[in-house]
């Protein structure tokens, strides 16, 4: 077993700040007793002198532009689940470590991600892309990995022999014990885990309780630890508060890019894809704007979702400023896994569905279509619009022009030289659109080749098509 622990030290802050690239001074406060104190603040705020633990009034006196948000544990949990879903792209064994950590069991998927170093790099860059800062560590037991991540050491322990030595150097305050226990340990001079381990076990258990001894054993792998793995919810729904209101739809790109990796990870954890998802732009007073994105085929390719979202947002007008966005994917469809090509043949030819989607988004759904023949003798009814790419089949054809005019044009018979014909078409008495025509191929004086007919009821001549 090999566990990677991820600790998000600034999670309470990042849930508010990661929706925008520019960092305004921001502080998250928490009520302690009857006073509100700063729990965490970003770099822009600490540059102005704001420090964690400071009363809110003092912080606001130091920084006039300071944005103050109350801590929101529910959103923190939701974000943690979001990260867990995203981490599903690396390994199916993801375990939550509330309130601000994740544990990933990766021994089974090292080869898939081409080695440990590569996996770790992907994890780090992915988290960075979503706007989370993290400390990671790796060890052969989950609790040891977690303690190392909490300490921020970045240690990687894959050999059991080194575990006790490296773990021993960690301070006791990282342990998940009651504050009195930790204070008691400090008082008897046990500052590191090694100090605790040197003490007689029986005495330690009697004085500080069995939990302390158990926790140390779990960290060292002497006591098994059963962890519950994260189960993805049946549908995807994530909300992101924006630090400042956004007026232009294109300004939502950045925030949406923070959420899309979560959707992708969620889909790969479920071996699924989406054909449709929506981006809900939440307004203060007016009803929310819903931007829908559709794909020709179910997909979970991140780049594709980015591209379509960017182009859709470029065409979207917002009725009011947006303060939060939501990404919803209600219908999750199973996605067939295609093996990667050994020789990368598929990379050469472009993606036809992607082109179709892009054209539909920019031009509108009606402006992009295919055509198909229809079984009717009347020329104007012998074809129909269809979805591009539909296999329409074909019917045995006679000589027909390539352009058919939407409406026949009256013409003068004497300017034409009839080349071939007639082809008599008499049909349609049953639906009131009956035709009785003799069709000819005719050459116009100016060189155009026309498809003309003589209406047998009226005797008039009409041009119906061009042999372009």
């Amino acid at each position, binding site marked *: 077993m090999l566990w990677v622990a991820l600790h998000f030290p600034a999670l309470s802050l990042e849930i508010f700040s990661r929706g925008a690239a520019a960092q305004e001074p921001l502080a998250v406060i928490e009520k302690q007793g009857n006073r509100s104190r700063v729990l965490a603040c970003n770099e822009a705020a600490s540059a102005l002198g704001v420090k964690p633990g400071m009363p809110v009034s003092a912080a606001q006196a130091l920084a006039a532009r300071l944005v103050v948000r109350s801590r929101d544990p529910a959103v923190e949990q939701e974000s943690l689940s979001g990260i867990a879903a995203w981490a599903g792209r690396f390994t199916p064994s993801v375990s939550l470590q509330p309130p601000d950590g994740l544990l990933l069991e990766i021994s089974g998927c090292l080869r898939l991600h081409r080695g440990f170093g590569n996996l770790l790099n992907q994890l780090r860059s992915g988290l960075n892309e979503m706007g989370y800062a993290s400390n990671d560590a790796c060890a052969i037991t989950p609790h040891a990995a977690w303690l190392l991540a909490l300490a921020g050491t970045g240690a990687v322990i894959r050999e059991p022999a080194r575990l006790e030595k490296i773990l021993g150097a960690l301070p006791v305050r990282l342990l998940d014990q009651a504050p009195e226990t930790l204070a008691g340990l400090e008082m008897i001079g046990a500052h590191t885990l090694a100090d605790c381990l040197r003490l007689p076990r029986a005495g330690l258990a009697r004085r500080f309780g069995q939990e302390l001894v158990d926790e140390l054993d779990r960290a060292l792998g002497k006591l098994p630890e059963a962890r519950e793995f994260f189960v993805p919810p049946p549908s995807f729904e994530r909300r992101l508060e924006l630090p400042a209101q956004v007026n232009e739809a294109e300004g939502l790109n950045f925030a949406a890019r923070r959420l899309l990796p979560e959707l992708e990870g969620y889909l790969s954890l479920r071996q699924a894809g989406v054909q449709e998802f929506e981006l809900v732009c939440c307004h203060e007073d007016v009803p929310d704007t819903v931007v829908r994105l559709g794909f020709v085929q179910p997909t979970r390719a991140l780049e594709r979702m980015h591209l379509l979202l960017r182009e859709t947002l470029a065409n979207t007008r917002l009725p009011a400023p947006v303060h939060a966005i939501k990404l919803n994917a209600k219908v999750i469809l199973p996605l067939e896994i295609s093996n990667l090509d050994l020789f990368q043949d598929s990379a*050469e*030819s*472009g*993606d*036809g569905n*992607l*082109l*179709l989607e*892009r*054209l539909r988004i*920019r*031009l*509108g759904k009606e*402006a*992009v*279509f*295919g*055509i*198909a*023949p*229809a079984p009717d003798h009347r*020329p104007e009814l*012998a*074809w*129909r619009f269809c979805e*591009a*790419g*539909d*296999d*329409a089949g*074909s*019917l*045995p*054809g*006679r*000589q*027909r*022009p*390539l*352009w*058919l*005019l*939407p409406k026949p044009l009256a013409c003068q018979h004497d300017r034409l030289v009839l*080349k*071939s014909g007639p082809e008599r078409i008499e049909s349609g008495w049953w639906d009131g659109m009956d035709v009785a025509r003799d069709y000819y*191929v005719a050459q*116009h004086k*100016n*060189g*155009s*080749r*026309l498809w003309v007919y003589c209406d047998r009821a009226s005797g008039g001549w009409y041009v119906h*098509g*061009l*042999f*372009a």
Partner: protein
Amino acid sequence: MNASLDLVLQHPGIWRGDQLAQAGADALPTGFAELDEQLPGGGWPRGALTEILIEREGIGELRLLLPALARASEQSGWQAWVAPPHVPYAPALAAAGVRLKQLLVAKPQSAADAWWTAEQALRSGACSAVLSWLSMPDERRMRRLQLGAESGRAWGVLFRSASAAQERSPAALRLRLEASANGLAVHILKRRGGHLSRPVMVDLYQGTGVRRTRPSAPKLSVVQSPREAA
């Protein structure tokens, strides 16, 4: 010419003035043998823009492309028709052997959207052929299309009015079509590998134009242009 001179002339390092550029040309046979002979690579250039200048619609400008379109539709990939003046008539295309499944017709609202569509289609690499009828061409836009065709390895066709014959163009191949009594006169205004002063006559209908169920290679003949005969 004696045998030893022949031997020397076969050396790959020797280029003769009447040879057309062949190197790297990826071409789609037009289906008209006489025209193939005059085009570099022996057909419509893939990965390049072809400009077709016509005086008026209906002189056979699409029929000239049909055999190549039918051949291109044997492979996968869209055949995109961008902003056609009318809706292409499905039974005629099907009869000519074009697979309608691969046909993608786009009718953009504005000229700018039409240029964008054509460029995206060419660039995507998902289209074997892109036929476009675009208004307000300028050199910058045309160059973008030519570059798009190069990167997407697509056969791009741009239909324009014959009045643009004197303008500069980045297209790799420029043809002006003219209806004449005995077929379609194809003037090659620009091609890679040399100038051709006389038009190529293409008989699109092979005889009187009676019903033809299968597309076959029509007959072609090269005639002297009046200017040259004089």
